[in-house]
């Protein structure tokens, strides 16, 4: 638990003149599930997009696995073992399920059979749909495919942007169960969620992001019990009177 896999220092992200992320520090240790919760527009997605290289930071440093990856291209970042499950799943609708999985391993040159079996082990429903085009899957299946696709890159750190978005509660539960299993199998996870309740239950540690700054941090349990968090993110007033 002590190795720092991802370290973010004083990160600032600007779009035009607007500062979306206003200087945040964040650590993810190897083996953890860390979650970043916050309202819409708090800067969660911007943070994740910057780590993955899609957006160049205005200031600050991102250290991954002992290496400074600040401002590098997504291709280089992926090759170091950092994969992202993007918001809205973004599976390739014109590729079959199995092709969507293979493309997650685009930079790998070794045999993919075992990994495909592993993903099918997590998500048996994908196996049945192996030869179907990705665009024909249901929302939940697409989310499973997006997670499976990222796993195919054998990530050291798996980043997920709102995996619960637009999914039925039962499917969300299933996805979160798998996230925990993936983590138990050795993959570190950085999770962004609006569904704070789900995220805090599964997370070892959590950060609360507000207006581009980190307002609070602690273990998932601590934040679940925190009154301010309960009031603002868990939609619950119990214990506040």
């Amino acid at each position, binding site marked *: 638990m002590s190795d720092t896999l991802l370290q973010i220092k004083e990160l600032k992200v600007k779009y035009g003149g607007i500062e979306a992320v206003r200087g945040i520090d964040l650590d993810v240790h190897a083996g953890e599930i860390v979650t970043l919760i916050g309202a819409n527009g708090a800067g969660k997605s911007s943070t994740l997009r910057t780590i993955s290289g899609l957006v160049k930071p205005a200031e600050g440093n991102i250290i991954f696995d002992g290496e400074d990856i600040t401002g590098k291209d997504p291709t280089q970042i992926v090759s170091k073992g950092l994969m992202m499950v993007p918001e809205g799943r973004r599976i390739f*609708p014109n*590729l079959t399920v199995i092709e969507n999985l293979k*493309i997650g391993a*685009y930079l790998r040159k070794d045999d993919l059979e075992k990994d495909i079996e592993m993903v099918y082990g997590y998500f048996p429903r994908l196996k049945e749909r192996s030869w179907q085009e990705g665009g024909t899957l249901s929302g939940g299946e697409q989310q499973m495919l997006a997670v499976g696709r990222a796993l195919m890159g054998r990530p050291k750190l798996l980043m997920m942007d709102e995996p619960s978005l637009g999914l039925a509660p039962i499917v969300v539960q299933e996805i979160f169960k798998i996230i925990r299993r993936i983590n138990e199998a050795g993959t570190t996870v950085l999770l962004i969620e609006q569904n704070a309740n789900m995220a805090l239950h599964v997370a070892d540690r959590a950060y609360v992001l507000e207006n581009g700054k980190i307002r609070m941090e602690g273990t998932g349990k601590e934040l679940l019990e925190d009154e301010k968090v309960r009031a603002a993110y868990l939609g619950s007033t119990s214990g506040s009177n």
Partner: protein
Amino acid sequence: MEYVISVLLSGISVGGQYALIAIGYTLVYGILRLINFAHGDVFMVAGLMGIYFTATMPFSVSIPLVLILTVVLGFTIERAAYKPLRSAPRMSVMISAIGVSYLLQNTATYITGGQPMTYPVIPFLSDTVNVAGTQTKWVVIVTPFLVLLLVFALTMLINRTKVGMAMRAVSKDFETSRLMGIKINSVISVTFIIGSALAAVGSVLFFTNYPAITPTAGAMPGLKAFVAAVFGGIGSIPGAVIGAFLIGICETIIKGLPSAWDVSVFSDAFTFALLIIILIFKPQGLFGEAATDKV
């Protein structure tokens, strides 16, 4: 009967040549949503290179050299004129393409002095052959088979190889492709390389049939190939190929109508009238996808 056969044969042949150009338009559109206006001129330059190289080198060297240098040209155009505009509005890239088109035409005028040049007689392709009682050139017979072979190879590349998979992924979603580790620029380059190589092959076949090359010789075949690509549904390879064959055949039939009717002069106008009619009834073309945003 013999006359009908000869008209059909040459229609299929010219259609096949348009197809080789049309694939270049449709591939690039499929990935960049860009109409590469310079593509017809790349085809013309390939023809000119054919003239200059065969004058000094044996065919076994000059023709492969034409192929290689056309690919280099297509690759360089993309890197120099389109890549720097990757995040610019699509209209800017289109204007850049028009600029490249004129640059190539003007350079050709500068080099040739604007005089029509004559494409060399390539052995075998230019030899005559007897088919069902009509005399024709071998190129007319070879073209459709070569086109089908190349289209088959291209389809295999796109559907069965890793780079083909990347091309299909990039055509749908740049950003997510990057998150998979795909280098977008390499995939785009591959697209231009394939398109230019096919245009080079097309130039050898087409100019063996129509040997006069002027600096604007790429404009009309390029335009018709573009029409074929739109007709078939731009972005679709089978669409472009079928569209090109249809346009080639229709055009040759009109040219072949009895001269007393005096319509052959309208064959080009007919091509575009056909496009308009098709697009009225099928705005996406024969095999096009619904809801694409076009410039």
